[in-house]
Each structure stands twice: as structure tokens, then as C-alpha cells.
């Protein structure tokens, strides 16, 4: 199945990537597994995606690593928010 992964703000800048598509095995996919897979892309990816204050969202809701994925989900990783 395919999912979209989006990056914002400093995370987007550090990774030099705002969006990518990932093809995943069908079974037992979670946000944490996507994060681990992306960390294999290189030292910058490993560093940025292992930051403890990184926020993950799935389909516009904040979720944790155990959140299970479905085909077509939109995942996002971003730093703590600073609007207002």
C-alpha cells in the first residue's frame, strides 16, 4: 500500500524534503515503522526523525508511533508548533 509523508518547518528544511510517497508491505504498518524506515535514509534523517519532541500526525490528527496505517493515509512529521 502507498502512504504520503509530509514534513514541515525546520524538519522540512533539515531534510530538504517537503513530501514523499512510500510503498509499504500490507501488514502491520505503523507510524513508528515508517519513521524507522525513513531513518535509514542517512545520518540527517536519522538525527531529525529521532528528535524526542518531533510530532507525528496521521490524516490531520496527532498520533503516536503505535498508530496503525491504512492505504492512502497522510502522515506528517513536524517540530513543536509555534503559531499564535
Amino acid at each position, binding site marked *: 500500500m502507498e502512504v504520503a509523508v509530509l514534513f514541515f*518547518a525546520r524538519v522540512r528544511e533539515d531534510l530538504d524534503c517537503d513530501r514523499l510517497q512510500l510503498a509499504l508491505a500490507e501488514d502491520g504498518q505503523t507510524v513508528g515503522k515508517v519513521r524507522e524506515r525513513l531513518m535509514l535514509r542517512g545520518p540527517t534523517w536519522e538525527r531529525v526523525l529521532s528528535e524526542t519532541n518531533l510530532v507525528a500526525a496521521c490524516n*490531520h490528527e496527532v498520533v503516536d508511533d503505535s498508530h496503525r496505517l491504512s492505504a492512502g493515509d497522510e502522515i*506528517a512529521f*513536524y*517540530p*513543536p*508548533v*509555534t*503559531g*499564535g
Partner: protein
Amino acid sequence: MDAVIDIAVLREDFDPGALQEALPPASGGAGAVATFTGYVRGQDDRGALNWMELEHYPGMTEASLRRIADEACARWGLLAVTIVHRTGRLFPGERIVWVGTAAMHRGEAFAACEFLMDYLKTRAPLWKRESGEWGETWVEARDSDSDRAGRWQAP
């Protein structure tokens, strides 16, 4: 009565007077309207600011503001909530955000307005980048904002 909720994320400036006028008036029972407007400060401890740039997550920002507004309406029995947040490049003195709450009595209007700002600052996917005398930097999330938001959680 269902609350009237209005959410907007936009690049253009907005008019606080017109936004308040559009909140349901006392004919609907509202005796109290509280509002908050956030402005770009031109100066802080680090020196003068050139500009601020607001990035957001289109779609999720609106959804997130709506969830926060729903929560405030349920908690304080509000008659209306409006939240407007700008994005893009903003200069000192410009408006960033407006929150307005209408309620029967002032206690609810005040509490909900402050709650909305505290939650918006710690939950809505918006990020500020600043250019000033000190260079160009992403704004770091502040513990004081998390602390303020934490006050609203049940003990």
C-alpha cells in the same frame, strides 16, 4: 442551541471590528464577547525584527482549530467562536491572530478565549520563522506556552 463556529486561515489581513460584529449579538442571549488579537512585535530582547514568516499545514491547521473550538464550546457553553490566523510573511505591527468568544456571561467568554489561545499556540500546526538583527531563525516552542496550556487540563 448549537454554537456558531467560524475558522479561517488566510494570508490577507483581517478587521477585528468586523469580525466582532459578525459574532452573534445579544438577541441570541450573548451578554459577553471577549476577543484577543496577537500582533507582530517589532522588538524584543534580541533586537529589532525585520519580518516573521508563518508556515502551516494546510487542512490540518483548520481541522485542528475546529477541534479546539468544539472543545471550548462544549466546555463553556459558548454561543459563538471565531478564530482567524494569518500565514505568510508579516511585518512588525501587523495582526497575526484573532480569537473571539460570545457567551451569556463574562466568565465563560474570558476563560474560553484564553483557553483557545493557549491551545492554538501548542496544538495548531503553525510555525514561525523570524528575521531580525540576530539573523534568521525558527522560533523555538516555549515551555511557558506548554505550562499555560496545561492549566486547562483536569487535575
